[in-house]
């Protein structure tokens, strides 16, 4: 199946090509003598959305940090766009549970922060227009561009954080429970938004979550992990058409996949 690529994505890659490969990544925290992660292998195709779910302490956040180049693995390697990840990289976008906006910068100024750090204030200033277009695209219209974070709701703040992640046009998005601190209604809405954004850009995404319905709703594949030491228990394909709607979450097909994830979690969690 060939799908026409969005024009402004990283050159040379087609949907389905391997974008990211995790090769036998394992992590031991020597100081505490804790084995956080047993060797983990998987790959993420271009344009694919992978969600990871598992009990606390299954090493999923550790895995994400290693993939982001924020933490060295004890064993193994992460390959992105054909080269190993050995530190923070421009083609990786990252998002956390907290919006981590700087309260002394307006929405627009927060969005251009990555450019300012990498290319200096002058280049960043020139990109303000593009930052504002991004904000517009997540329904933060003109009135909100000059607003400071303390005037934004939790959902709005996370939308600014999404724009900040997208502004450098990364080839992979690493999301660490991005909507975990939001109330459920906002969270549902943000999940739909995230799906729309990822579909528009054919984004390659890897998201850690604690919510089974969220994992199923967003993922092309749900990776279920088990704890101590963390390893992949099962990878479940989600064959639901996109765009998925919240209405679909009440249907039988959705429920079946949720039950499968639940069952796998119960086995891993108890065992």
């Amino acid at each position, binding site marked *: 199946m060939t799908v026409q690529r969005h024009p402004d994505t990283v050159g040379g890659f087609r949907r389905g090509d391997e974008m990211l490969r995790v090769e036998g990544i394992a992590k031991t925290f020597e100081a505490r003598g804790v084995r956080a992660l047993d060797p983990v292998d998987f790959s993420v195709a271009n344009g694919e959305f992978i969600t990871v779910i598992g009990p606390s302490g299954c090493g999923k956040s550790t895995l994400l*940090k290693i993939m*982001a*180049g*924020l933490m060295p693995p004890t064993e193994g390697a992460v390959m992105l766009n054909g080269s190993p990840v050995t*530190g*923070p*990289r*421009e083609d*990786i976008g*990252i998002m*956390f*549970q*907290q919006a*981590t906006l*700087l*309260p*002394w910068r307006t929405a627009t100024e927060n969005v251009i*922060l*990555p450019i*300012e*750090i*990498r290319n200096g204030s002058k280049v960043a200033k020139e990109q303000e227009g593009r930052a504002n277009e991004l904000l517009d695209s997540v329904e933060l219209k003109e009135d909100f561009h000059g607003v*400071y*974070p*303390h005037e934004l709701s939790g959902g709005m703040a996370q939308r600014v954080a999404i724009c900040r992640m997208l502004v450098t046009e990364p080839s992979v998005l690493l999301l660490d429970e991005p909507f975990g601190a939001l109330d459920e209604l906002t969270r549902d809405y943000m999940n739909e938004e995230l799906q729309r954004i990822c579909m528009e850009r054919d984004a390659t995404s890897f998201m850690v979550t604690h919510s089974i319905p969220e994992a199923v709703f967003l993922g092309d594949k749900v990776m279920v992990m088990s704890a101590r030491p963390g390893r992949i228990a099962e990878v479940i394909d989600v064959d639901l058409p996109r765009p998925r709607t919240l209405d679909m979450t009440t249907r039988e097909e959705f429920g079946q996949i949720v039950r499968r994830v639940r069952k796998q979690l119960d086995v891993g969690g108890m065992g």
Partner: protein
Amino acid sequence: MSQTADRKQEVARPASKYGFEESWLDRTPRWLSLLVLGVAGILIWYGITLLEVVSPILFPGPIETFEEIYLSARGILSGDHVFEALVITTQEVIWGFIAAAALGFFFGVIVGETKIGQKAVMPYLVGFNASPKVAFAPVFVAWFGFGINSKIVMALFIAFFPVIVDTAAGLASTDRDTVMLFRSLGASRWQTLTKLKLPNALPYIFAGLKTAAVFSVVGAVVGEYLGGGKGLGELVRLSAQQLRLDRVFALIFYLSLLGLALFAFVSWLERRLVFWHKPEPLEITSA
């Protein structure tokens, strides 16, 4: 006004059952409660002097004190010796404060930003901060003489610990996820410091500066008590020796105004610079 009153009647809750009804104190505006308490305090003070349980020489009443405050004010305005003393003490306080702010900030950043600073230097500073720093005053007189310099150094010495400790604490309070975000963006240490940690530490730094504003007056006055000074502290000491406690009270009033003025200036600067963080009005800061 009347609308809210109407609504209150409309609701007509069964009062007192819950034990957290809005009391009349909640509805009293702040300025009124301050005024009432102030007037009450002065009346109690006056009442105690009327009882004459203490000799009026040792415990002057509000009338004598206010009279002395008024006389001093006239003296200050006409440029007499009280005015000269005020100028000298103000100089000691301001130079002491500026030096404390600059040095405190500098060392605070070093302590907060380096591992050695956090692990080894900070505990010593906290310990030093707990020591009775005024006890060092004779040392500074020995080192810097009886002139204005020893007073400035004393003000600096007392005032700069809170700035160091609060600056370092502010830097350490930076949200870990945001630090991680900066790392993921490939930010240099300098960028992380100037674009994230220092702005984040500003509310802490200002808390330290406000403490320093008050402490620098303490330092200057203690320095003057040890002698050789020509400032307000020296006048307090002389007036107390002459058992003119009404004058002592008046001078302490002006010293408090000096500290309050510096405190107010720092608070004003804070509101301008730290616009995203709103401290409570009249926020009390710890030493």
